[in-house]
């Protein structure tokens, strides 16, 4: 083999690895970057499918902040998410602590507990519609009062939070349990020698050690919960009135029901920015913890 041939082969060897990346790059360009750029363009236009687009600058973004329904949807989302995520974290952690101990049928119970996680949210919405149904539904059938779960604005929002808690607490539980099981027994043995109470051990040893995990779980849940769509869509349809019309549901209706695609794109971008701010904030916090 000549030197030149060897050089070509070496060059080919060093470049071939890039060839394998091409499908992934093409995939990302077509299905991520292009829609992102195209929807950004749309957000500056009044889109009338079949009738041409009209450039309107930042009007759609201004509408996000001035439109009463958009503001209401953002507020509704915030209320539902704050309640749901807070309870999921607390409940998930409590269950993880409980299951971290030796107890009978732990494996079976853990399996049962994680099952909601694998259910389809839209189906869960319809399932809980029958459970919350006010005339002869499961819950009202078991209690002596007729609680207006879905027809009272406040309770309807609470019902959605409850369903979200039912589905996502297992996720928090699983991650927290993994974190707890990764902690060294020696630390606890040392703490026991110091005769610390159970609460003190949890407060001053367990909690600080799993704090990075808590931040990660909080971050993931917040990012996911802010996109909440399926459960309100199937459980309440956003009602009564607009009491449970969450931001994603409003965006969906704006874009795909009313074909106001420019405004829907602007709504999506604002959501994207909000989620990015939240992620950045928590990542900074996480970095501080590790530092």
């Amino acid at each position, binding site marked *: 083999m000549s030197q030149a041939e060897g050089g070509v082969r070496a060059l080919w060897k060093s470049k071939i690895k890039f060839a394998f990346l091409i499908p992934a790059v093409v995939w990302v360009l077509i299905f991520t970057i292009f829609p992102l750029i195209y929807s950004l363009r749309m957000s500056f236009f009044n889109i009338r499918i*079949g009738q041409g687009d009209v450039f309107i600058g930042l009007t759609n973004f201004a509408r996000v902040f001035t439109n009463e329904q958009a503001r209401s949807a953002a507020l509704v989302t915030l209320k539902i998410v704050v309640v749901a995520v807070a309870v999921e974290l607390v409940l998930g952690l409590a269950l993880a602590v409980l299951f971290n101990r030796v107890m009978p049928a732990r494996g079976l119970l853990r399996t049962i507990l994680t099952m909601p996680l694998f259910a389809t949210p839209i189906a869960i919405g319809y399932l809980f519609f029958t459970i919350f149904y006010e005339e002869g539904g499961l819950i009202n059938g078991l209690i002596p009062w007729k609680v207006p779960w879905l027809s009272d604005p406040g309770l309807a929002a609470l019902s959605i939070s409850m369903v979200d808690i039912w589905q996502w607490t297992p996720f928090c539980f699983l991650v927290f349990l993994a974190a707890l099981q990764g902690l060294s027994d020696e630390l606890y043995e040392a703490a026991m020698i110091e005769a610390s109470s159970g609460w003190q051990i949890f407060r001053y040893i367990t909690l600080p050690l799993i704090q990075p995990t808590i931040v990660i779980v909080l971050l993931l849940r917040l990012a996911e919960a802010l996109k909440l769509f399926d459960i309100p869509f199937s459980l309440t349809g956003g009602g009564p009135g607009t009491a449970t019309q969450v931001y994603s549901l409003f965006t969906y209706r704006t874009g795909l029901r009313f074909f106001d695609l420019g405004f829907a794109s602007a709504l999506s971008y604002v959501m994207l920015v909000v989620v990015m701010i939240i992620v950045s904030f928590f990542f900074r916090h996480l970095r501080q913890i590790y530092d």
Partner: protein
Amino acid sequence: MRNLGILVIAGFAILALALPVFAEQYVTWGKDGSCVLTTLDGEKIEFAPGELGTLFGPGKQPFKGKKIAITVNAAGPKGGICGPLYRFRPAWEELTGAKLDIVEIPFAEHYTKVMNDLRLGIGQYDGFMTGSFWYGDLVGGNYIIPVDDYIKDPRFPKWDPNSMPNSLRTLYSWGGKMYGVLNDADGQVLYYRKDILTDAKWREAFKKEYKYDLPVPPKTWDQVLDIAKFFNGKDWNKDGEPDSGIVLHPKVGEQGMFHFMSLSAPFVYLPGPKVDKAHNLYWFDPETMEPLINSPGHVKALEFLLELAKTGPKAQVGWSLGEAWDYFLRGKSIFVFSWGDVGALVQDTSRSKVKGKIGASILPGCYEVYDRSKGKFVKLDKPNIVGNTTGGSWHGVISRLSKNPDVVYSLLALHATKPVSLWNASRGWTGVDPGYKYQFLPPEGTANLKDYLAEGWSENDIREYLKAYHDNFYAEHVVTYLRIPGAFEYFTTLDQNLSAAMSGQLTPKAALDKTAKQWDEITDRLGRAQQLKLYQEAIGYKK
């Protein structure tokens, strides 16, 4: 071995002979040109000679090899509107030689998918079973084709647009051209418990309390309210639990706005000789597109609806059609005002306890109606009774993008023929509600009572039901229908704000003011001038 060979050949021969028999089991031609079509369930529908047009006949399959796709609200092979397409598909395929793809799309997605197909020029579907409130978008966008020439064409199955009352024919047309092919007739009527309201014991008690004879049927909404209040909370059905006066279906996203439209019409719709700025209006000012939805008449109607709702179960705020209908069918409420489906469901004794016990009438009116020209309510000598065509009146239209409009029309026209239309109306479950002369009983129409009784209808119920629908569609005044582009968005915002009022989040005035503001925003976004032009066309306004 030789015998086996003979057996196999014989088997194939029998199969070959049998196949055409199986393949042509849904159409039977008579020597005189008459025809019998067999539905998927084996029911036989007879057609007179020539009724199916000249295109079809023994041995003819004019559209062989062609295939069309029709969209319809998803309801399954035996569901409303969708079911008849399935029932007659084999017969139509055998008649034409073409194939029919029934594309079921959930109600919530149907409009979106159809408009995407049309606006993007995809042409995936050849026709649509549309709701009348889509017309502004469909005709405004030039997406569907008129069928006037087809109706006159002797090649196709025959149906008569003149059998439709004006109120319904208007919904199927635009600008003097017919776009829709006869099918469903939607409108809301008042259903009531005739057995209870005519009971001497209750009548006496009512008179004692309200100082007037209990009217059957009630002629005004105030009378409905009195009766509903009187019966609400009493165990009049003797099931050991308190029962209700009325049941509503105002759940958001489930057509609650249609309830309000029907009820509010007599408060708002001031009849006059022609459409002008004060008369025969409901939605917008015909010269400025200013929303009228927050007029004092509308506000009064919503206040009334809230008062009426108090005589029903509290949970109904979150109820859609199914739950509300079920409540009435279980004999838990005196009144429900709704679509034709209720009359048919009442006959199903597996879920209904009220078969043979109901009465039905055109929706009541009121003695005071708001007059825009005077800026105040005016009193009338007799109740302002206003009919309605509330709902979808779901029917077929042909996509301009279809490569086979003739094939699509042949399908829609078959379903519009008198024998199929009568078959649909008498079955009830088809979701194709009665509205045409030949579906009503004499003296209003020409239908045969026996046809309905054979399908299990109670004689009392069918007489009440058909009379109520006749009176509604042939009423002297029928409230105009919203058919401009964006109708779905206008309806949705109204629906949400009504639900907010019903659940106590907003006062009636605030809810309707908010609706008016949102409607103005929609109108501006869609183009006020264009919307105004189409609105004027839709309601027949001329200066």
